[in-house]
């Protein structure tokens, strides 16, 4: 190709800048699992979540943020493949009540369940609460398997964009701020007590 070295450098720099800008697009809404554990029949998870201003604004304007927490206990089959031994799923909804000026984290599938509902007078307390999750694992979630068969656990927390208001779903498909997912966080079962 009859391009000079400087041209190559220019193109490379442009690609790097574009890639960096693309990566940096997700940084305002960083959402990741810092650590997790399964202990004494409950899931403990510490998250790094720095919600974007848009998301906080949405929360303050009554938009409920619905997160789905999924934990899997995985073993290894005799063929070497990973198999799911047990799986538990929770949903936690964050929302604001203007009358009482309270933020609330609750299970949207059981909204009247007082045990899962927590109220917070400040938004920071709510974010701190979801950043330090402790969720009770249902009895028998391993399906009768011995917990020693578990090799590792995986955790994934996603914002349920499908549950956003209709008008917001289209922008949510486009805007990276709304694509909140920790991805799969995995840790060995040996690290847990169980």
């Amino acid at each position, binding site marked *: 190709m009859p391009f000079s070295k400087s041209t190559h450098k220019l193109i490379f720099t442009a690609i790097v800048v574009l890639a960096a800008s693309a990566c940096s697009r997700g940084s305002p809404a960083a959402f990741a699992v810092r650590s997790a554990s399964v202990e004494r029949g409950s899931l403990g998870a510490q998250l790094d979540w720095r919600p974007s201003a848009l998301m906080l604004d949405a929360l303050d304007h009554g938009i409920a943020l619905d997160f789905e927490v999924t934990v899997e206990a995985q073993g290894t089959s005799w063929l070497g493949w990973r198999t799911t031994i047990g799986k538990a799923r929770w949903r936690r909804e964050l929302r604001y009540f203007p009358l009482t000026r309270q933020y609330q984290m609750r299970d949207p599938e*059981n909204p009247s369940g*007082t045990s899962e509902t927590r109220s917070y007078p400040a938004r920071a307390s709510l974010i701190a609460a979801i950043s330090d999750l402790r969720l009770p694992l249902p009895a028998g979630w391993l399906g009768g398997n011995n917990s020693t068969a578990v090799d590792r656990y995986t955790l994934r927390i996603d914002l349920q964009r499908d549950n956003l208001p*209709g008008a917001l779903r289209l922008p949510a498909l486009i805007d990276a701020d709304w694509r909140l997912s920790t991805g799969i966080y995995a840790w060995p079962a040996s690290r847990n007590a169980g």
Partner: protein
Amino acid sequence: MARVAKRWLSFGVRRVLPALAILTLLAAALLLARDAAGGSNRFGAYYSWILVASAISLGVLILIIAQRLLRLSRELQRRIPGARLTRRMLLMLIGLAVPPVLVVYGFSLFFLNATIDTWFNVRLEKGLNDALEIGSAYLGERLRAAEGNSTQLAHDLADLSDTELQSHLDSAIDTRGATQLTVFGNDRKVLATQSADPRFLNPVYPDANALLQIKDSGRYAAADHLGGDNGLILRVAMPLGDATAGRERMLLALFPVPQQIQPLTAAVEQANFDFQRLKFLRDSLKLTFSLVLTFVLLLSALFGVLTAFGVARRLTAPISRLATATQAVGAGRYDTPLPVASDDELGFLLNSFNQMQRELELASGRLSRSALETDSQRTYLKAVLERLSTGVLGLDREGVLRTANHAAETILEAPLSRYVGQHLTVVRSQRADLQPMIDPILAHMREGAREWREEVVLEAGGSERRVLMLRGAELGSAGDDAGIVVVFDDLTILNRAQRDAAWAEVARRLAHEVKNPLTPIQLAAERLRRRFIGRLPPDETEVLDRATHTIVNQVEALKAMVNAFGDYARPPMIDARALSINALTSEVLDLYENDQRIQLTRNFAASDPMLRADAVRLRQLLHNLIKNSLEAMSGERKPHIEVSTTEGEIGGRAFVELAVADNGPGLPEGFGDRWFEPYTTSKVKGTGLGLAVAKKIAEEHGGSIRAENRPSGGAVFTLWLPRDAA
């Protein structure tokens, strides 16, 4: 099989695919609009698929339209009938359909934005906020009352032992108007609890946040949402008495919000909640509705274009077929009947065209037959004209030559076919010899005579004259511009024949009326001589002798002349036999061989051609020609006669040519055919019948005779006689 599959595939691409794409776009627009407007999330999980399907549908529609545009472009380049009309109708239909859609789109966007903006009325927002404030103030009031109640209860319970707590709570639940009263021990153990509402039978230990607040401010008091339709509950928690180690106890009191207030606060909160949510979603709503409108616009525009294609095709298809059929009819093919698929004006047009085509086919057939008949008639007429011995000229009203038959060319000795299409004046300017004929024709045309006849004489050079009888007549009825026809005959031969017949009659009368008295005259003269010569005095005897001698000589001369006339008038009775022209000629020439006055030269054909002729008559002819030459050379010092025979061919017929040439003075000026008529001579003593008899004998044998001057001087008489075919 492959053809059926291809047809189905084509049907799918042309019909089903556009319909599916349009339906998909329509469904996507409806779903998006429904979700955006209603705030539901029924199809939330399918948003990505809906958008992808919409994009694919758009792409499919655009591709289909592009393909149709490309096809139309190709048809335009190939000048396929109907393509230009399709383009015009397409543009017209698009022009009709798309601008209104764009206008509606623009206004819809404008009204959409304006309408959404009107939702967020400042006064409305303030009213909602104020209502919320009132609700909050009321709840605060209630909360403070609950807090006071709880403080009093905590004071009452502070000194009680754990076992006494339950009985106290049992009574306090009613007196305090609480929903639930619970005392927790230091290990979060429930020491005593009482509930007035079955929903709150299980006390819940305050969460970390409440504990932190208790730790900070000595109590926790808040109005909590119970979730669902359970409304609000006032929750107060505070430690009981002194918090000595091992004796920390906590009172948790839940108080209800009055039932009549609950729905009001819920409504106020919900209204404010909805307003704030809408406020936040304002831009998203605009975006979503704009997208939906854009979908609808694209759908409408593309559907309009596709429909325009379909309508244009449907409308122009019969016209295209009509144009193709018209071209076929123009090319003379009438085998393309058009299918009539509708009973509207177009159907009527196609029906009429089919009928016209059938009638044209019939008319064309009739025309062809008529043309064939006309052609046949023309050929027949032309053949008749060509075989006519009468000359025929066809002229238009302006005097332009339109046709001339072969006889006309022969009679006039002019290539008239070369002048067809030219005015007679042009012919006259190039053929001055035809002027005596052309001038009367033009004159009669100028006069407008419908029928006329005139005898004209053409001078053909030298002394040759031809007498033509012209007859002209207008073609067609009066007022028609069909022109005129001129027919003419060469009367020269007829006149000559008439003269020949007259001379024959003269000869016959001479033979009867003149020859009969000659013999008695001659006998009388000889008797006078015998009786009176020698008996009369010498002078008178000499006179008598001279007179009777003259009488006898003149009678002899008259007899000779009468005999010559008799020969000329004798009916042709030829005793034709095969003979050698060389031998016959030699035999005649031998008679003159000893004549010292002339020099004879024989130049005979080596092939010795044979003839079928009457030897006596042919001998007479030769004698006449030689005698004519001898008389013509009477003044010459060295008269010389050359007789030659040759073979030749004229017009495919074999002839023997016999030429008698002399070195005399040549033919007199103005010598022509007339000199072969009787009693035409330049000699003093000639009877004027020699050449006439020679010509008559030649014609009796089917031959002809012609005289001309020799380049070296003298004249040559050439006789052509047909050769013996055997």
